[in-house]
């Protein structure tokens, strides 16, 4: 049985683990990125590599000693660096003596043959395509369930009456989804999870601010890399809406661009007509859309030295001015501290509250 691992991206590992085991692989679970992960990544990655490159390398350096033979990751097609992660990681891991290979999944729409070829490498029992398709379908449904439940916590947390109740309930229900296997079980687990979360005592009259979150995909999807910013905001009475979810993103990348993607592009057009790779243009477009939808503010999350997000950040002040929406940017790296972030967030929340109050009296 090939021993495989993959990057840690939020709670998605629960679904990938199931898929990979169904196909007949032995999965070595990636740990949640920790201080140790960062230290390892920083030590062996080039100094100016972007933050995700470092975290992923650190993650691999934690799993490789357990005998990993194959790493599965997704490529991303230029012109940004993401497409080069895998190659760099492989070179570094090999130079450290780990005989691992990396399989890069590119969007099947662009590289259909490569996609099938890659699938075969993960299919030691030579299952039929039909059987594989069934596995993927279940895994996808599980991913959706995970995303849906997470979205719900973003709504409930700012309204909870007992601090931490949402997060505790969330931890609990994640395990239910984790254990579900058949399609019916997954749907049932999702349903009970949603009901359980709704039982968290809430104050429906609380004056909650709404903030959109935009930025680079990895730091958006992995709470450990953004110091759990969504939780911190929730505790400050802010409902967040994240512009990217794994099921939203993989779909965009996998099938034709969705209509939603098109509107983001259109919204960005007056500011940034060029696709930069990464999610730079989406950051602009989504900010415009959040403003139009009446959000109180936008937070941009970007890895330190992230090229497309730097371009976006240079333009965002103008968007913020034109659409009169406050925007706050965090460039994240291993030195970003939770306390400093909390202080900036509190000030930002104050600013939004004052703005909202002024708008009401006006």
């Amino acid at each position, binding site marked *: 049985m090939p021993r495989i691992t993959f990057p840690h991206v939020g709670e998605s590992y629960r679904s990938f683990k199931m898929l990979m085991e169904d196909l007949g692989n032995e999965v070595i679970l990636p740990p949640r990125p920790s201080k140790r992960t960062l230290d390892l990544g920083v030590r062996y990655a080039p100094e100016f590599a972007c933050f995700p490159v470092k975290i992923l390398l650190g993650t691999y350096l934690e799993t490789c000693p357990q005998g990993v033979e194959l790493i599965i990751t997704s490529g991303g097609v230029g012109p940004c660096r993401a497409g080069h992660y895998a190659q760099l990681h492989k070179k570094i891991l090999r130079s450290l003596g780990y005989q691992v290979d990396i399989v890069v999944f590119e969007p099947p729409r662009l590289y259909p043959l490569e996609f099938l070829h890659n699938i075969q490498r993960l299919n030691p029992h030579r299952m039929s395509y039909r059987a594989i398709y069934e596995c993927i379908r279940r895994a996808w449904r599980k991913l959706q369930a995970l995303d849906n439940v997470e979205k719900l916590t973003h709504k409930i947390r700012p309204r909870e009456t007992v601090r931490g109740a949402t997060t505790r309930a969330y931890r609990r229900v994640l395990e239910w989804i984790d254990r579900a296997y058949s399609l019916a079980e997954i749907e049932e687990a999702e349903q009970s999870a949603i009901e359980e979360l709704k039982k968290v005592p809430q104050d429906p009259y609380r004056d909650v601010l709404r903030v959109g979150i935009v930025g680079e995909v990895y730091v958006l999807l992995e709470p450990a890399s953004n110091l759990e910013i969504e939780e911190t905001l929730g505790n400050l009475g802010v409902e967040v809406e994240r512009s990217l979810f794994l099921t939203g993103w993989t779909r965009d990348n996998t099938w034709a661009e969705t209509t939603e993607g098109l509107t983001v592009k259109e919204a960005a057009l007056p500011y940034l007509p060029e696709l*930069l790779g990464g999610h730079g243009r989406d950051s602009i477009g989504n900010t415009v859309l959040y403003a139009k939808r009446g959000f109180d503010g936008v937070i941009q999350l970007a890895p330190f030295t992230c090229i497309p997000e730097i371009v976006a950040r240079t333009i965002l002040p103008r968007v913020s001015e034109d659409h009169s929406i406050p925007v706050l940017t965090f460039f994240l790296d291993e030195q970003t501290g939770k306390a400093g972030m909390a202080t900036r967030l509190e000030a930002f929340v104050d600013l939004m509250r004052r703005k909202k109050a002024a708008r009401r009296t006006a």
Partner: protein
Amino acid sequence: MAVRVGIPSSLLYYLYYPAWNTFFSELGARVIPSGNTTREILDLGVKEALADACVPIKLYFGHVKALVGQVDYLFIPRVVCLNRETTYCPKFLGLPDMILHSIKNVPPLIDVRIDVREERDALFKAYRQAGQVLGATGRVIIQAYRKAMATERRFFSLLRKGWSPHEALQILKTGSRPPKKKGRLTFAVLGYPYLVYDQYISVGLLGRLKKMGVDVVTVENLAPRVLYRQKDYLEKRLFWTLGDLVLRAAHYLLRRTNIDGVIHVTAFGCGPDSLVGKYLEMAVHQYRNVPFMSLSIDEHSGDAGIATRLEAFVDMVMRKKEVGLQCPGSLSPM
């Protein structure tokens, strides 16, 4: 009065200024470059650009600021792809947008998009569009374009003969060639043209080497034909034209024996360089142990620090070469 077209003297200026200058001049415009980088220009840029941006982008902002108020148009093309294969760094792709939306009172931009993957004569069409902004029409534009391309060919062929862009510009202008004498050592100085040739930001790197008797080969001195023959140096090629060229040049030069040392000039905060630098280091180790030095440039690089490091490096290479001459074979891996 002639229309004044400003061209910031940074980034692709070092490669395409002669062509741009010829083109706009032929159309009757007065071309105004922002000139050599100075402390003031750098300071303007540092103040204006995002703190997290790389030095060259900050510097470019400074050059733009220096032109604001002096010109009627600013020529800031969106250069996406010129060779059908690789694109420029995403910051080049978003350059006009960054300038337009963050610098106050910018004059109208001529921000034509150049992507030769789109159609066969995309380059000409981009020039035509630029010419139309100035109100020029068909014939005149075609002629200006032809002249621009002729200038570009002459300029590039001078670069390939070993001249630097500054020298080549001088030769194009005056026709006379500066004297050249052979140095004691030859270094490959690899990096983006806007770092290597900017005398201010590179703290006079090329001049210093020359004074120490070191001849220099840069990426621009090599013919692209030769570089593109360097096949398969990576499993997956780099997406960015300039970084890709740096790596190809490295592989080509390292295989030849007449290079005594390699200096990689890299910008503080440069995204692509985190990869290019790492691959370059690996390449240097792969071929033979050519002395290698990486020079990271930021807005505070001081004269003194760089001078000392350079001198030490040159001395080391010199000693190594002398030892090598006395007893051949001792140069094998250290």
